[in-house]
């Protein structure tokens, strides 16, 4: 009931236009990048030519980023836009206390809001992904194999979870903050931190813990530790997690996501991974993303349930 109303609200709202434009931009730019970059990709490295269809999502032209990296960057925006005033706007309009005095459990309100947002995100992501696939099919004449199609679908699910995470974070902020603007700013600050600053910070911390350079044996030994440490810190950020997971999924040539030494490589066959093996590789990422989403939503849920709802 509430879910229906929230979904209807989203679709009828002016914000939906913004979502559609944003999603359309991601789709068009992503596709344009792929279309102009695809030929180069085939020319340069033909090793993974068998998975050309997936390249539609990962190839970037000179300055235009690929669909995948656009999604990693802009996906959070969609989630944040959907959620940042979920509770706040109800409070500001004075409808929240009317709503909580109706005979329905309070958690239905926040779950309804979250699910409606997630549902819409899923619809948008899948439609945009499938549009690219369809147009790519017609324009390039590439026919996806079953494995490619499976990878594509899993990839799109990842996108939905990723947007859902940011939606949950935004809903949380909207219950905590009194004003929608505060909540939006807080979300954007967190997003900036996760996508830009954490990688800088990770580098600094890793260098401090395991100094490299100097040329002696210890520094050489530290190299590996330094890299691992930096990567692990980076993985705290959903942005990095998402990027790593999706590039593994969309590129079957990726065989490992951790640092690999020469000894570990010896004897390995140079081939691509099957869907199942790729999934195995990114399973922790998926778990982490889902767990983060649930944690953020749990935060929103708890703070909303404990909140005293007064008149505006």
């Amino acid at each position, binding site marked *: *009931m*509430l879910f229906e*109303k929230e979904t209807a*609200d989203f679709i*009828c*709202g002016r914000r939906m236009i913004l979502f559609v434009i944003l999603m359309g931009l991601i789709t068009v730019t992503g596709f344009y990048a792929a279309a102009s970059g695809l030929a180069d990709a085939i020319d340069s490295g033909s090793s993974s030519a068998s998975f050309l269809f997936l390249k539609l999502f990962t190839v970037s032209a000179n300055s235009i980023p690929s669909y995948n990296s656009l999604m990693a960057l802009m996906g959070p925006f969609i989630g944040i836009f959907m959620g940042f005033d979920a509770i706040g706007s109800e409070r500001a*309009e*004075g*409808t929240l*206390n*009317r709503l*909580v*005095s*109706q*005979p*329905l*459990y309070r958690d239905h309100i926040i779950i309804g809001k979250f699910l409606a947002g997630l549902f819409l995100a899923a619809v948008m992501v899948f439609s945009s992904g499938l549009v690219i696939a369809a147009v790519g099919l017609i324009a390039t004449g590439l026919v996806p194999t079953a494995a490619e199609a499976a990878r594509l679908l899993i990839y799109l699910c990842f996108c939905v979870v990723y947007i859902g995470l940011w939606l949950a974070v935004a809903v949380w902020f909207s219950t905590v903050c009194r004003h929608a603007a505060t909540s939006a700013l807080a979300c954007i600050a967190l997003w900036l931190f996760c996508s830009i600053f954490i990688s800088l910070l990770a580098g600094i911390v890793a260098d401090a813990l395991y100094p490299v350079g100097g040329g002696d044996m210890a520094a050489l030994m530290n190299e590996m530790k330094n890299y691992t440490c930096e990567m692990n810190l980076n993985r705290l950020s959903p942005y990095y997690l998402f990027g790593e997971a999706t590039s593994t999924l969309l590129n079957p040539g990726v065989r490992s996501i951790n640092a690999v030494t020469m000894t570990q490589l010896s004897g390995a066959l140079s081939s691509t991974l099957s869907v199942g093996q790729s999934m195995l590789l990114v399973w922790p990422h998926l778990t982490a993303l889902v767990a983060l989403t649930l944690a953020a939503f749990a935060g929103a849920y708890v703070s909303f349930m404990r909140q*005293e*709802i*007064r*008149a*505006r």
Partner: protein
Amino acid sequence: MAGAEKGSPAVIRTEGLTKRYGELTAVDHLDLSVLKGEVFGLLGPNGAGKTTTTLMLLGLTEPDEGQARIGGLDCTRDAIEVKRTVGYLPDNVGFYSAMTGRENLRFTGRLNGLAGTELEEKIDALLERVNMTDAADKKAGTYSRGMRQRLGIADVLMKDPRVIIMDEPTLGIDPQGVRELMWLIRDLAEGDGRTVLLSSHQLHQVQRVCDRMGIFVQGKMIACGTLEELGRQIDHDGVNTLELAAYPDNVKLSGIIKAMNGVMDVEKNSDMYIIHSSFDLRRALSRELAQQGYTIMHLRQAGSDLDEIYRKYFEKEDGQNGTGTDTGKRRESKISHSESAL
């Protein structure tokens, strides 16, 4: 409360209800009972704990001590059941501005399990009742405050509640709107047999509509009862005060009054005499003055007016807490005077 024992059983009953916010005790051991079909007014200045009480009655806030029951249901434990039978009209009610009034009502109706033609008929009937049929299909964002309030009442009635709780229903509404609202509230109680609890700091408006009222100061209910009972509670402090104007207003008049049995003091206040006596003099005074050939132009017992009662209670309170807020209260009551005069 004396009223609770006689007649129909109490619909709303609180026992030792207490809510603290850190150091501040917003509601302090409140014992309240409201009978079926009566309009009960919760009166007090801003910040007296009225809203907190209504929130606890609806289970929106958990009390720290004591309990509140509506129709035998515990307001904290059976909050959902309570909300099925209790309608709440919050102070400054809001609606989804992107939806029309009718759509807003439809949404509430569906939340309460109504559907189909039953729902539509109910919406039409309620819009008619609150006189909003013309504006029903405009966006709620364009409504004036009075319209929002009226739509709010329709919204509350969607679930056909046995108890209606209203928080400051008259705030910010023009006199005509207030009159209509008061008439509607009376009708809800008398016509439909619903119990109404309303909180307000606007005395005159409430005075007209309430059967009983409780005066609420700093989380405590310091007095409760009908208007007359409240007036009597004050008079039992020992002094009975009358206002008198009579014709001809000559020097002898004051002498006659002073000579009467029980009169303690007489003040002349422009065209009015203020008579302090040890008991109610109205009968004796009017007989005496009629015999002496006077015509009584005005005779009124001070304290029978809510404003007076209210002020007296604050004076008593101020006696304990210093006199800082006294003038403020007087000003407030003056304001409500002039409002009601409009």
